[in-house]
């Protein structure tokens, strides 16, 4: 019996170590406490049993084994790691009705799989220990394990795995469920206050307009506005409440930092989440999909327009800010690819208010165009000082469409989202006269809402429907998506500030 006791304890300790490693990711150093409990408690109980033959100690030891096998081995190791990795990814590659599983880092998933394997050893040696204890109590020689009928054992294991994998596949599949009472609730996740208020408000208006444009639909569509405030923790609570209390069937949202918060919540609820977000990694192709031109697409379009205009040298004056930095990085790469040189490159901090020496240095480098991109109020300060320096050859990406003082940028050309249906903008401005039309978000908000509506009207699970979209003809022109991708790609357009208003160059 001592042999099996030793092997049983050894398998428990090894599995406890694996469980600890696996739990370091969600629990941090608290996982060490869990590991200590899983090692010390069984060791103490087995030591007590061996010295006293206490039934309580033996039962306690077996209960610890049961916890490790069921709680960690089967539920965590098998159901949450092994099956998603081995079966979930296979199913997702076969059919879009199965989401691609959200997997953690490699060490996390491998330790989960090893926890499952370790728990099988815990189960086996726990069983052998019980048998040996029973034989010892009866005064019989312990039965030695002999590998009998290995084919039968292997076949049984395969059948058991197939049954469990089938159960997993059944629960993993996204199926169509008709909305309760014929009402589809769509959560609109955008900030309604703070520096994002202008964008959030106009995003909401675009979605409201999309809903009011619906005619003769099978279902009613109700918007659930989720005011996520400014704090990410507050946003997480508000979104979770919308999912669990309001039972939203889908989410449309915008702005990357809130998209990142929404993504895991939408995945857990298994509802589609569209996001007008420039951070492409947010779109996973399972439940979250981004829809906005990428910085790379903006850069390609910008450089094409620069070449068309005969521009040979460029000066860059840009604010040090993540999204702007993304545009500048993509632009530099594209400029290098086509061989267009930059004569002056300056990234300024958000504390800078006097740009005159910067402008003078840029002018001295003789650029054909000044590429400027910044947020308010620095965008306006820079625009004012460029204006005073009589510099009019200015270009940008997106920024002039959101400036508070477009008159400073008269004649500036820039890339921004396309607007195939210019009537959309006109209708929007007529319907909401006091609301700013943010070209780089509004068409996508409108289109995202309509994608979800189309799914319900066709009686398809909305997440599966969006996974299957390869091409969509919307207000922002044609957007495309590669199979399995979570990012809709679209080609931006060239705009120009004319009479202090953005105008599409293609419609000049």
């Amino acid at each position, binding site marked *: 019996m001592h042999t099996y006791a030793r092997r049983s304890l050894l398998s428990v300790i090894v599995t406890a170590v694996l469980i600890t490693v696996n739990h370091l990711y969600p629990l941090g150093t608290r996982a060490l406490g869990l590991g200590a409990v899983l090692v010390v408690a069984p060791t103490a109980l087995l030591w007590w049993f061996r010295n006293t033959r206490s039934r309580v100690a033996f039962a306690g030891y077996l209960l610890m084994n049961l916890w490790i096998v069921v709680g960690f081995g089967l539920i965590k190791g098998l159901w949450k790691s092994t099956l998603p990795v081995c079966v979930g990814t296979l199913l997702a590659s076969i059919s879009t009705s199965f989401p691609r599983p959200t997997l953690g880092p490699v060490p996390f998933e491998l330790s989960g799989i090893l926890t499952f394997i370790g728990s099988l050893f815990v189960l086996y040696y726990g069983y052998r220990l019980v048998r040996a204890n029973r034989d010892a109590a009866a005064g019989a020689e312990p039965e030695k394990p002999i590998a009998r009928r290995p084919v039968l054992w292997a076949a049984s294991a395969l059948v058991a795995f197939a049954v469990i994998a089938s159960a997993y596949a059944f629960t993993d599949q996204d199926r169509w469920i008709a909305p309760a009472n014929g009402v589809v609730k769509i959560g609109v996740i955008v900030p309604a206050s703070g520096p994002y208020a202008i964008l959030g408000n106009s995003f909401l208006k675009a979605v409201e307009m999309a809903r009011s444009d619906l005619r003769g639909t099978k279902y009613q569509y109700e918007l659930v506005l989720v005011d996520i405030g400014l704090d990410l923790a507050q946003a997480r609570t508000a979104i979770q409440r919308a999912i669990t209390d309001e039972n939203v069937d889908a989410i449309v949202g*915008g702005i990357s930092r809130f998209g990142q918060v929404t993504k895991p919540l939408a995945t857990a609820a298994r509802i589609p989440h569209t996001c007008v977000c420039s951070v492409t990694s947010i779109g996973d192709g399972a439940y979250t999909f981004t829809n906005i031109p990428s910085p790379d697409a903006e850069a390609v379009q910008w450089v094409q327009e620069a070449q068309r205009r005969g521009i040979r040298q460029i000066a860059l004056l840009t604010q040090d800010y993540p*999204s702007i930095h993304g545009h500048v990085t993509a632009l530099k790469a594209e400029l290098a690819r086509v061989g267009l040189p930059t004569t002056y490159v300056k990234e300024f901090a958000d504390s800078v208010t006097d740009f005159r020496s910067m402008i003078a240095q840029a002018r001295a480098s003789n650029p054909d165009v000044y590429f400027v991109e910044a947020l308010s109020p620095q965008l306006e300060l820079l625009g004012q000082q460029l204006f005073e320096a009589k510099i009019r050859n200015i270009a940008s990406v997106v920024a002039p469409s959101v400036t508070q003082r477009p008159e400073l940028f008269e004649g500036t050309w820039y890339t921004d989202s396309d607007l195939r249906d210019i009537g959309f903008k006109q209708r929007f401005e007529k319907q909401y006269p006091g609301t700013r039309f943010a070209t780089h978000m509004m068409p996508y908000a409108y289109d995202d809402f309509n994608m979800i509506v189309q799914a319900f009207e066709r009686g398809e699970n909305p997440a599966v429907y969006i996974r299957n979209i390869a091409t969509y003809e919307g207000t922002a022109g044609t957007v495309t998506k590669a199979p399995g991708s979570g990012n809709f790609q679209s080609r931006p357009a060239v705009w120009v500030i004319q009479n202090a208003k953005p105008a599409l160059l293609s419609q000049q």
Partner: protein
Amino acid sequence: MNRRTHTPTILALLIAAVLAGAYVIVAQNNAAMGGAVETPAGLLH
């Protein structure tokens, strides 16, 4: 040759194969789902 003497070797090889396969699957899956998370873009979008 005793069949039982091979059991630990077969088990070790099976576990190694499972882990190697899982490593490839997880790495490919994470790369396809966007890879490392970038800094949120913030105000512009």
